[in-house]
């Protein structure tokens, strides 16, 4: 048997006490050295941290000096350090694919507490891995070329940053934005915490740069419909929704918007507290500087649908361009793009506070969301920056800001939305500054872990903002006793520090609604081949060591699409994603795991069973030779055809039948022995 000629080294990691605290590492080493000796194990060692430089050098040294031909590292999950140990082997001159990891941390020490049972399981896993590695073959990584163009999805601050970084490096970027303008949520804000910079002042220059950058190709009012291919070589289909505007002709003069007689509530940019026309600017500094027509509220379109004849057409009548920029007949378009990498920065949505009926949002006139208040504070917003009640005039004398609305609550979202504490402090400051009102913050915990954040909290305290520690129970417009004034909103709360139930009368309530994943994040994830956490955020490749890449090579995440975060973190992640993409582009080609299927033609009976199984259409039938053939460039290595071939004619490199059978035998080693004894 080949195993007799192979020289296997087994390394068992303590991982500090992570593994050694549960698994008897010495006993595992002894098992490998003694019991697996006849299976080719020539040495077994343990070490505190195998992944450390010293640990890796240990392996390298043994390969060189002891002539190891196979390596097994029993440590953490291969998803964490497989590359590390393969690298060590390669440096010592051993083909990296002759090393395997046995996961005894995630799959043993962290999930079991009985020492004996955990140690026994660790031994089985080591035994299985040894048997498997004996059947491993030396492989070469697959090299794929990287298309230098990059797709960035989402034109908020994270996507803008990513797009600009890649474009500045000199590569083409396709920037796709679902809305009619770049900017994202940040464009809605007035000031940004903790420095109180004007959001527009720092955002709009970036929007303008992206809009005019020769390397950035802007697709606003557009959505990605389909993604095919793999890292380095993606084909993306983009749907451009009709704006009913000739983008090439329109000068952005705005006469159409001025003349449009239809005014509707703007639920989008103005968050429901302002109006827009049926043909409208997304907002004043929109990029691109083009209006968009909403066919659902436009008199012409409604007329055309219901009475077979349009009306109005004021926009077209008054449009000064030749030819006319209004195109009532504009249709959806589809564009196909070729890119090498994708950065997803699709952002977040606001928690709908109507889901918490006791807070009265949507029912009580003077209960607002934090986003509505952002618009109210904004000088370009519907109130010109004045803090007023629903009547549009009266300034509130007392304002209550309710924290954790829909966040840290198992009835809604269990996670902390991370930004609302600071946003609420900022709003408290702005309300106080603009209206002089008494401001109360109702909080469970004030979370200010960013740079200069707690300093801002101290400043707001100094400004005289009140803080009540308690999750608000309800907001009501009905006084409880004869002593309570009518016409107020009563915030009922337990002041947990005083140990009292309090009812605090205010004129306005602001709900610090949390961040939620986009409603269609699961679908979007599916389109790009990545998955969402149970809370709906895109899952990064590794929570700590790789919060930028995803499980799908060549697809990166940035900004709140990956989880709630503030502006600096979004910008940093956008830039980081760009750096990762640039590194791929500069490499020119990428080494992929050599896990691929291939047909052994002599064994192929030409039954074609495999042909229809491949999701990538990598298998075709060669008529002349009456055999099936696999295109290695298209194959992604799932192995379905390998499993399906009735003649066993398809080989799966890295996951061959021989490897897997051997692993099964190894895992069941002690059971087999027991039954033999019986």
């Amino acid at each position: 048997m080949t195993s007799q000629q192979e020289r296997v080294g087994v390394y068992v990691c303590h991982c500090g006490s992570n593994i050694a605290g549960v698994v008897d590492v010495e006993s595992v080493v002894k098992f490998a050295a003694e019991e697996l000796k006849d299976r080719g194990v020539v040495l077994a060692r343990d070490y505190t941290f195998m992944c450390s430089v010293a640990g890796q050098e240990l392996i390298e040294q043994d390969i060189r000096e002891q002539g190891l031909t196979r390596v097994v590292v029993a440590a953490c999950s291969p998803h964490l350090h497989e590359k590390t140990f393969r690298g060590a082997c390669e440096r010592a001159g051993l083909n990296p694919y002759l090393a395997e990891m046995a996961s005894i941390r995630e799959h043993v020490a962290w999930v079991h507490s009985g020492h004996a049972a955990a140690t026994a399981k660790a031994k089985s896993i080591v035994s299985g891995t040894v048997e498997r590695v004996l059947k491993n073959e030396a492989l070469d990584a697959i090299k794929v070329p990287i298309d230098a163009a990059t797709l960035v999805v989402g034109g908020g601050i994270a996507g803008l940053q990513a797009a600009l970084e890649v474009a500045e490096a000199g590569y083409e970027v396709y920037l796709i934005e679902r809305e009619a303008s770049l900017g994202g949520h940040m464009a809605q804000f007035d000031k940004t915490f903790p420095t109180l910079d004007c959001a527009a002042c720092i955002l709009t220059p970036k929007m303008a740069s992206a809009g005019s950058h020769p390397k950035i190709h802007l697709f606003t009012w557009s959505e990605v419909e389909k993604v095919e291919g793999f890292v380095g070589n993606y084909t993306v289909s983009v749907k451009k929704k009709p704006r009913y505007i000739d983008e090439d002709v329109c000068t952005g003069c705005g006469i159409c918007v001025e003349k449009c007689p239809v005014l509707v509530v703007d639920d989008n940019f103005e968050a429901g507290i302002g109006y827009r026309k049926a043909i409208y600017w997304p907002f004043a500094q929109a990029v691109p500087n083009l209006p968009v027509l909403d066919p659902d509220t436009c008199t012409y379109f409604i007329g055309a649908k219901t009475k077979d004849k349009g009306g109005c057409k004021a926009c077209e009548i008054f449009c000064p361009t030749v030819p006319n920029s209004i195109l009532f007949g504009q249709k959806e378009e589809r564009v196909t793009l070729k890119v090498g990498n994708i950065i997803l920065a699709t952002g977040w949505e606001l928690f709908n506070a109507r889901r918490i009926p006791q807070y009265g949002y949507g029912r009580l006139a003077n209960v607002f969301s934090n986003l509505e208040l952002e618009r109210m504070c904004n000088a370009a917003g519907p109130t010109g920056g004045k803090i007023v009640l629903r009547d549009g005039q009266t300034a509130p004398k007392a304002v209550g800001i309710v924290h954790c609305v829909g966040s840290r609550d198992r009835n809604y979202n269990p996670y902390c939305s991370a930004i609302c504490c600071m946003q609420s402090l900022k709003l408290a400051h702005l309300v106080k500054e603009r209206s002089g009102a008494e401001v109360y913050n109702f909080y469970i915990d004030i979370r200010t872990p960013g740079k200069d954040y707690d300093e801002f909290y101290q400043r707001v305290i100094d400004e005289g903002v009140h803080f009540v520690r308690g999750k608000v129970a309800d907001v009501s417009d009905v006084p409880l006793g004869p002593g309570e004034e009518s016409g107020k909103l009563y915030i009922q709360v337990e002041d947990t520090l005083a140990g009292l139930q309090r009812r605090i009368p205010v004129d306005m309530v602001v709900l610090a609604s949390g961040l939620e994943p986009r409603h269609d994040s699961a679908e979007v994830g599916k389109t790009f081949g990545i998955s969402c956490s149970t809370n709906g955020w895109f899952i990064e490749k590794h929570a700590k060591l790789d919060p930028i890449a995803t499980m799908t090579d060549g697809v990166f995440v940035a900004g709140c699409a990956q989880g709630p975060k503030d502006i600096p973190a979004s910008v940093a992640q956008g830039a980081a994603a760009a750096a990762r993409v640039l590194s791929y582009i500069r490499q020119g080609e990428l080494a992929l795991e050599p896990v691929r299927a291939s047909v052994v033609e002599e064994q192929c009976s030409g039954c074609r069973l495999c042909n229809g199984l491949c999701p990538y259409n990598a298998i075709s039938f060669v008529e002349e030779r009456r055999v099936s053939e696999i295109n290695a460039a298209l194959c992604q290595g799932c192995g379905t055809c390998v499993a399906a071939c009735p003649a066993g004619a398809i080989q799966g490199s890295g996951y061959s039948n021989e490897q897997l059978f051997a692993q099964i035998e190894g895992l069941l080693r002690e059971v087999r022995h027991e039954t033999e004894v019986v």
Partner: protein
Amino acid sequence: MSAAAVSVSGPKDFLSEVMAGTPGDNRLNHCIQCGSCGGSCPSGAEMEHTPRRLFALIQAGQRETVLKSNAPWYCVSCYYCTVRCPQNIHITDVMYTLKAMAIRAGLYHDAAMPGFSETFVDYVEKYGRSFELGLATRFNLRHHPLSLAGMAPLGLGMLKRGRMDLTPHRIAGMAQLSAILDKAKALEGATP
């Protein structure tokens, strides 16, 4: 910390005891002290300790303070705290557990509260049905003799409108019910 503040039984024991006495996955150990229970409670203003505070005291092992508190007795079973609790703690059920524990330990501070419950239970155990007139009269005689006169118009009004019985009604299967309740109490005594 003074010696008196340290619980004899150890904090965890009391928490486990309360949790074990409350059915299902009651999650009492997950309290984050947010106060949405105390804020939501219709009688929270009258409680010596809000539910939130009680839960902290339970975690701190303050058995006597907790079982002496009037708070569980002021619970009106409106379940606001339960449905609003961000940690899904079965707060109302915990209040029932505390009341039963307080009676068993003889630690309730104002006999009126458990007195009402116990009077009610007496009637149910004797007749299988509740009996409002008897309940109100006996309860008030025992605990609020002075207010009896004040409530008389209401009682008279009820009688006049045919909304109150003068005599209690007894169910037919009283023996069966007694057997069930006796067995249940024996089993309840056997398990914590």
